[in-house]
């Protein structure tokens, strides 16, 4: 009921037919909404502000919306900021845009601003601005006069314009103070004036008026932008890809047109426009219902371009005969569509309020009078653009909303699979999978193994993954339902941990067992058809949220899948999550993607229609885009909006979602791309911080890896490259600083420094270097590389580890006593030569033998060989293994392997002979050997050692060494082996069953022995 009343109200207003809506309520209603309790006169001014805001929004919609947050900052601050920026224009001109004041909520500041403006703003401007405060007042007062005279039947849009202008006049100071004193605003001041003169004038004339003074008045800003323009020109084509700023940025008044005047038209924008940024132009077109596409096709109606740069687009346009349209042409088009009706009343009211706002000291009777007028007018003609919001809010106040308590997300939850937006192929796959599940897994026995094998790839469970809000759960439910399966949903709020193993405990108990039972149990049902037992489907929602309180978690789920007699549908957001790594092997993976904005827009339109909400299609698409495909979120937004308005337009969406954009996961690469992009300099500080903090570990690494590749756009023309070099130096210095800070953070856990680290590691380099990425080396891909540090670090660690292995082997060989560093620096080259040179120069067999002997001497294993080779490789130097015949290599390997049966590297720990605790012994040996050189022991052992060697040699005879040389050598080597030998004796006592043992042992000593006299001599220290 009440909602109907509200609609009625709305319509009445829209038609202007409704009796004056109680204006008092408007005002009152507005007050709370806009939260301006400050001054009593604020209420009426609200309306003006409203309009003012919307009006201003039109000139600079894009950036204005961006800065919404900044509105909170006081105007004073804004102005303060504006000044230095001005000075830094070259470097940070983009920032200016950010500074642009935001229409919507600024109102409460307005009054203070105005005060400031009058004094501060002018002084701030470099060039004198035409409308001095007094003029502003004048303009306003003329407007006011209008109000009084009640010139009423003018074009409504014109009204808007008028309304805009005074407000601008008042706000110009502020705007400029913020570094965004655009012509529009300057114009506004003058405009107000003109309006005073020719309020009945034709709308076009109005616009003209608006435009011309703007140029005059806005000179200050014009100068600034001109400067910028020049800068851009200087950069020229060097910065391909970066679009120049429009030469007359913001200088033109953006026209008002009838809503949807561009509906059905398709535009392509090319090149730099005269006064609009690309985004602004896109916005403008979309606002009026047009479409903007990326490339020319037959369907394109116009190519919007102010200059013929002769690019692909214009060529193609010529080819296809697509007409060109200049920016002014577009404006005219929009303007022409404007209905001829003027809503002077509103205009008046705006001015009135504006005035009031501006001059709170004015006498109260006047105010009252004005307010009345205001009320009436607002009541009468609420332009769809500006007043709608407040009006509907109004209505809301009057009627309690009774749109049903049901959430739209529930109400419009798809009932059949075809209702699901997007991902139809996934839905189909799921459907097929579910349908064939039973045959595949339950009756496989009957149907023969053959079938099962044929479908061996079939998975018993399915894993739906995708971002939130795109209907995964819904799909699971709907598809199950369609197949007559009973879906039992278990989500993170249910306990689904590992079942209590004690069956006596029943199904309840500390951990819920019902899930476990469910998968092998039929479900209850007393349906009419008893034979056809209902089948259940287990829908495990949010499986990636398992593990927190769910004992056993995923592992248990996998166990369940294995034994399940019912299909299991798992749902998660991130399929690549570490937690799910094991699960994915058991699941058919279905990845849901975001629906396209067209798909979503269509659905949202339907819903809006059903709810009696008027919505533009492109508004819905914008909404779809803004929520990143999250239908649930889109619906919630829509429902929320429906509470306050009955028409949803493009601007509403933009405005609404600007402040509440959905957080999106951003990859470190994307973050770096954004930071270093052409527009990197336009980002707000908090955006930069957000970007660099998106991954505080990786972003700095990637930046450090890539910053050299960027050609900073801020240096402008730079033939010698000196400037760029300077920038590089500064960036490098900053990165170095960041490293110092980072050490503090990591080592001493000074996390409060993370802001500083992020600033100097990411933001400063990015601010300096952002621009065009170029390749420095031929063949390089022109994309940001992943930071090399991590890989290098791990390589370092690996190399140290390998070196340490070789080191310990050499130590154990007793041939050298050295530390790791000297091994690397002093020995390695020599070792390498010994290892590789023979292979290159000497005949194969000889060389191989020599090298193997050498290796044995130093207890080098083949891994050590590789290590040495590996560590000696350097970029730009020949590989030490070059020039060695593969045959030689393989012979070496073979020879070494051959010897390995009789060889144990003395370094211990690496060789493990089955059945014996050899490694341990070896380690002992290695440690104690130097000590155990006492002769008696040696002697005592000698004989047994000899025996041992004999036996082992008997085995090894054929391989390498003539048996007779051995004992002698053994004696020599025994010195080092005292303890080792004793141990051997013990093992020998067991019988010679373990032949390997003695053999191995003998090798430790005997490897040298085999090496014959020369090596034996070498071995002695």
């Amino acid at each position, binding site marked *: 009921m009440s909602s109907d009343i509200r609609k009625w109200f709305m319509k009445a207003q829209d038609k202007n037919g409704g009796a004056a809506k109680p204006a008092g309520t408007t005002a009152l209603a507005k007050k709370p909404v806009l939260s301006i309790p400050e001054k009593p006169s604020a209420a009426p001014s609200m309306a003006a502000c409203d309009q003012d805001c919307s009006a201003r929004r039109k000139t600079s919609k894009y950036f204005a919306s961006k800065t919404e947050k900044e509105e909170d900052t006081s105007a004073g601050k804004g102005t303060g900021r504006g000044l230095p920026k001005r000075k830094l224009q070259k470097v940070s001109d983009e920032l200016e845009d950010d500074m642009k004041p935001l229409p919507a909520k600024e109102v409460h500041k307005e009054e203070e601003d105005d005060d400031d403006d009058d004094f501060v703003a002018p002084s701030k401007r470099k060039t004198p601005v035409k409308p001095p405060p007094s003029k502003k007042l004048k303009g306003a007062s003329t407007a006011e006069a209008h109000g009084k005279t009640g010139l009423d039947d003018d074009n409504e849009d014109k009204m808007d314009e008028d309304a805009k202008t005074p407000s601008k006049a008042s706000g110009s100071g502020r705007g400029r103070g913020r570094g965004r004193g655009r012509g529009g605003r300057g114009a506004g001041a003058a405009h107000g004036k003109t309006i005073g003169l020719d309020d009945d004038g034709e709308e076009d004339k109005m616009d003209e008026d608006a435009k011309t003074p703007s140029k005059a008045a806005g000179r200050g800003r014009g100068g600034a932008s001109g400067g910028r323009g020049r800068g851009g020109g200087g950069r020229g084509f060097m910065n391909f890809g970066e679009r120049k700023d429009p030469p007359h940025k913001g200088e033109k008044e953006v026209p008002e047109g009838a809503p949807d005047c561009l509906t059905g038209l398709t535009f392509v924008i090319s090149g730099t426009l005269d006064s609009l940024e690309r985004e602004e132009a896109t916005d403008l077109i979309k606002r009026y219902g047009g479409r903007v596409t990326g490339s020319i096709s037959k369907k394109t109606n116009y190519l919007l371009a102010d200059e013929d740069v002769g690019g692909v687009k214009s060529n193609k346009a010529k080819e296809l005969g697509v007409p060109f349209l200049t920016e002014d042409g577009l404006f005219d088009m929009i303007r022409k569509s404007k209905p001829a009706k003027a809503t002077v009343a509103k205009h008046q009211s705006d001015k009135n309020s504006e005035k009031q706002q501006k001059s709170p000291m004015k006498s109260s009777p006047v105010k009252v009078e004005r307010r009345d007028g205001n009320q009436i007018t607002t009541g009468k003609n609420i332009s769809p653009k500006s007043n709608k919001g407040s009006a509907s809010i109004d209505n809301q106040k009057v009627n309690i909303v009774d749109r049903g308590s049901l959430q739209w997300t529930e109400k419009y939850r798809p009932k059949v699979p075809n209702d699901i937006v997007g991902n139809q192929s996934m839905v189909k796959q799921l459907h097929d999978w579910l349908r064939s599940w039973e045959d595949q897994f339950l009756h496989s026995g009957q149907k023969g193994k053959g079938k099962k094998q044929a479908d061996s790839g079939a998975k018993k469970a399915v894993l739906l993954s995708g971002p939130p809000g795109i209907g995964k759960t819904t799909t699971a439910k709907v598809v199950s339902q369609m197949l007559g399966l009973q879906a039992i949903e278990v989500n993170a709020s249910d306990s689904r941990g590992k079942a209590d193993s004690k069956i006596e405990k*029943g199904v309840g108990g500390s951990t819920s067992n019902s899930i476990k039972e469910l998968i092998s149990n039929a479900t209850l049902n007393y349906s009419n058809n008893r034979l056809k037992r209902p089948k259940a489907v287990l829908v495990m929602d949010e499986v990636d949220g398992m593990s927190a309180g769910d004992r056993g978690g995923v592992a248990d789920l996998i166990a369940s899948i294995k034994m399940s007699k019912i299909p299991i549908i798992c749902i998660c957001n991130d399929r690549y999550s570490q937690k799910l790594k094991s699960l994915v092997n058991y699941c058919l993976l279905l990845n849901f993607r975001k629906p396209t904005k067209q798909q979503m827009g269509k659905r949202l339109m339907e819903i809006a229609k059903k709810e009696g909400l008027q919505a533009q299609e492109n508004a819905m698409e914008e909404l779809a885009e803004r929520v990143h495909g999250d239908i649930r979120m889109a619906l919630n937004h829509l429902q929320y909006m429906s509470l306050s308005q009955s028409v949803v337009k493009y601007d509403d969406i933009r405005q609404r979602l600007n402040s509440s954009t959905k957080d999106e996961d951003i990859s470190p690469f994307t973050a770096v791309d954004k930071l270093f992009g052409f527009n990197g300099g336009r980002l707000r500080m908090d955006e930069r911080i957000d970007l660099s903090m998106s991954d505080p570990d990786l972003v700095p690494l990637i930046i450090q890896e890539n910053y050299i590749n960027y050609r900073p756009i801020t240096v402008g023309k730079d033939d010698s490259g000196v400037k760029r070099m300077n920038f590089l130096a500064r960036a490098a210095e900053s990165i170095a600083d960041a490293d110092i800070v980072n050490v503090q953070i990591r080592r001493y856990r000074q996390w409060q420094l993370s802001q500083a680290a992020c600033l100097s590691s990411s933001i400063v380099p990015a601010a300096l270097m952002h621009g065009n990425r170029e390749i420095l080396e031929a063949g390089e891909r022109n994309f940001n590389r992943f930071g090399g540090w991590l890989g290098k670090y791990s390589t370092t660690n690996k190399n140290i580890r390998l070196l340490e292995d070789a080191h310990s082997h050499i130590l154990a060989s007793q041939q050298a006593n050295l530390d790791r560093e000297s091994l690397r620096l002093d020995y390695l080259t020599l070792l390498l030569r010994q290892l590789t040179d023979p292979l290159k120069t000497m005949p194969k067999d000889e060389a191989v033998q020599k090298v193997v002997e050498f290796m044995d001497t130093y207890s080098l294993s083949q891994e050590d060989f590789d290590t040495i080779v590996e560590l000696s490789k350097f970029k730009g130097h020949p590989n030490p293994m070059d020039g060695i015949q593969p045959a030689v290599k393989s012979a070496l390997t073979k020879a070494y392997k051959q010897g390995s049966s009789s060889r144990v590297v003395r370094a211990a720990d690496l060789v493990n002979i089955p059945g014996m605790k050899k490694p341990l012994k070896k380690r002992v040996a290695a440690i104690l050997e130097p000590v155990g050189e006492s002769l008696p022991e040696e002697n005592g052992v000698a004989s047994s050692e000899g025996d041992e060697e004999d036996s082992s040699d008997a085995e090894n005879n054929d391989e390498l060494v003539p048996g007779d040389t051995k004992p002698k050598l053994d004696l020599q080597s025994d010195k080092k082996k005292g303890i080792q030998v004793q141990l051997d004796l013990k093992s020998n006592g067991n019988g010679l069953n373990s032949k390997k043992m003695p053999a191995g042992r003998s090798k430790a000593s005997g490897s040298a022995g085999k090496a014959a006299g020369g090596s034996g001599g070498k071995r002695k220290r």
Partner: protein
Amino acid sequence: MLELRLVQGSLLKKVLEAIRELVTDANFDCSGTGFSLQAMDSSHVALVALLLRSEGFEHYRCDRNLSMGMNLNNMAKMLRCAGNDDIITIKADDGSDTVTFMFESPNQDKIADFEMKLMDIDSEHLGIPDSEYQAIVRMPSSEFSRICKDLSSIGDTVIISVTKEGVKFSTAGDIGTANIVCRQNKTVDKPEDATIIEMQEPVSLTFALRYMNSFTKASPLSEQVTISLSSELPVVVEYKIAEMGYIRFYLAPKIEEDEEMKS
């Protein structure tokens, strides 16, 4: 207006203990004929049906049908505050969202009032048809509970086979198998110890022991348990509540690999 006065307060406590493991939230339906509940467990495998007829209450007033959604754990918390021989009165006003439990000690020297908030629970109500069962076994509830407990230490399912001679409970697990046969036995001193089998045709069905164990939590309510089996239907395990009504558990059988194929 609803007022139910139950002299045997402990009975309500026992009922609650019997079902709260299976079901966490349930709607209690009060009508002129009695106080009833029907609820499925979360996985829709088992169902509990409770009926307490109005005649069993000392005072029963129910002006119009009322459905009260309660969280059984919370309700159990409140009832735990009642003494075993307390008289329990359940009171609720039409349209109110609370229910009051009043506990009076037997000698009327202590009266406790507990008010509990009700919940909105949407549950589907199954129409359970009265059907002929192929086999009905009546046996001492303690015996049944003992059997389930014993078997559950061996396996996780129980095969209940009813033949002329008796009823066989068997299970198989990793460690081995177990069979327990209960013969028909009508000649006992006390009627509640009797084991009676009424059988049209032999039945053999498989059930999850875990659920059976949960059902046996109702054993304190009754000396005898009635198990009704039919090959096409869920098993019904019924505990009579003296002169007042019953509590019935329904359990769907296990899924058999080749079930469909046979049929």
